[in-house]
């Protein structure tokens, strides 16, 4: 078997859902699964970048940035209807297998490190980065000199080492990246009272198992989110041709699959996605009930989800149960509430909580709300 085809068996696809195009993303996931491919966990893992829908300007910029992070060989595609997915994947796979094109692509790329990571020159661009710590928001330029680091506020005047004054040391910014600043700078309380470094890490908009277009600006102290601000990056003007899956039985199973994938239960997540796809195809999957029972009964899952993202009507596990039983009430979670809910959590738990909310970002293209400011 030739090596290209062998490698193509494990093609990893990074799916980017534009708010409103959830039906297309579900179709993409179905076809990826049917080809024996898999969904990528991060840009570094991906071979294909597939954008489902027509992103607006800021979302496009974010996608472009992610595109620059794909290691290559790589291919990029945009698909707007569920019906177009198979043809798009075929084209992308052909591009991926085209050795000459890939060599041209590799030759055209600037040398490492990835260009986007250093180009975070203004605050706006910094917002668009997705997953790297290499994108501390640069608008916090106060954080960038050593003077703001932990020892910065010391008075060295009365010490005997005239040769070295470390508090005023001019800190270079390696590769143009600001250093993490001391905690006292931002006047945010540190849960450990240790005043750890503060990092500004944007979560989303391109993040697997993450609401479409959601961009969560988080401020981390240690590993904990101490403040967050959520906004939704808008799609382009034209409306999606397919009806969204949110609010339908398939949408509930989509939420289940997303949450379980983040909870690390691959088997149940894949099966939940299959149930979703069968429902979308108009069938009544017989295994749904058994799978639902199995998920509800898992003690380990209950233990690891209980108490997370507590809202008046229950925690993440309660919401999962409601999805499985079809008894959940549609509520509209404000973006401010999202930011509020993830405050105090670590990154992984924050992603779980966001997934447990099953946000319909297409329905919520409201004014970005501020939280934690």
């Amino acid at each position, binding site marked *: 078997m030739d090596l290209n085809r062998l490698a193509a068996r494990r093609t990893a696809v990074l799916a980017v859902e534009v708010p409103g195009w959830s039906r297309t993303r579900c179709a993409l996931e179905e076809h990826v699964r049917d080809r024996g491919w898999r969904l990528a966990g991060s840009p570094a893992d991906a071979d294909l970048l597939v954008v489902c829908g027509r992103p607006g300007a800021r979302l496009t910029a974010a996608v472009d940035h992610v595109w620059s992070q794909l290691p290559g060989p790589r291919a990029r595609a945009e698909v707007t209807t569920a019906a177009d997915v198979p043809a798009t994947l075929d084209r992308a796979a052909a591009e991926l297998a085209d050795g000459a094109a890939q060599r041209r692509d590799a030759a055209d790329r600037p040398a490492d490190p990835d260009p986007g990571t250093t180009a975070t020159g203004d605050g706006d661009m910094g917002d668009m980065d997705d997953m790297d710590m290499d994108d501390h928001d640069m608008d916090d330029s106060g954080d960038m000199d050593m003077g703001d680091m*932990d*020892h910065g*506020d*010391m008075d060295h005047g009365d*010490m005997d080492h005239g040769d070295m004054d*470390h508090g005023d040391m001019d800190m270079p910014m390696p590769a143009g990246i600001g250093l993490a600043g001391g905690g006292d700078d931002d006047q945010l309380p540190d849960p450990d*009272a*240790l*005043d750890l470094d503060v990092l500004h890490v944007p979560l989303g908009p391109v993040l697997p198992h993450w609401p479409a277009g959601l961009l969560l600006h988080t401020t981390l102290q240690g590993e904990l989110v101490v403040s967050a601000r959520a906004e939704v990056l808008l799609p382009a003007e034209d409306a999606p041709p397919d009806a969204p899956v949110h609010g339908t039985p398939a949408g509930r199973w989509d939420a289940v699959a997303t949450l379980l994938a983040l909870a690390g239960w691959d088997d149940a997540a894949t099966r939940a996605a299959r149930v979703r796809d069968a429902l979308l195809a108009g069938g009544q999957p017989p295994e749904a009930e058994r799978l639902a029972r199995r998920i509800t009964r898992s003690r380990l899952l209950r233990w690891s989800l209980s108490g997370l993202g507590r809202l008046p009507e229950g925690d993440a596990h309660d919401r999962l149960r409601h999805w499985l039983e079809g008894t959940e009430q549609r509520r509209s979670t404000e973006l401010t509430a999202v930011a509020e809910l993830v405050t105090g959590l670590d990154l992984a738990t924050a992603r779980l909580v966001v997934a447990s909310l099953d946000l319909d970002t297409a329905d919520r293209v409201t004014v970005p709300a501020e939280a934690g400011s």
Partner: protein
Amino acid sequence: MTLQTMLLVAAALFSVGLYGAISQQVVVMVMMGLELMLNGVILAAAAFWWFLSPTPDGQVLLLVVITAMTVEMAMGFAVATLLHRSRQSDMTDMATDLSR
């Protein structure tokens, strides 16, 4: 490999550690210096044990040195955390008022 060469290496490790322990400002770096000194001590003890008197007692001595290192580390970390928490400083110079 003779007693002399092993002791020389141990002396080198000890001296480097001493340099670090004296010159560094940050508590954790001072601890690194102390650790390196104890590293030299371990090597020297092993050399004496092997070349002079390979009895079980010598091994127990080494075990005690290693235990001393853990105690030193644990207390060092605790004090460093306490200092950091209470005065946002981790420099030894800043703790001189403790001696007053």
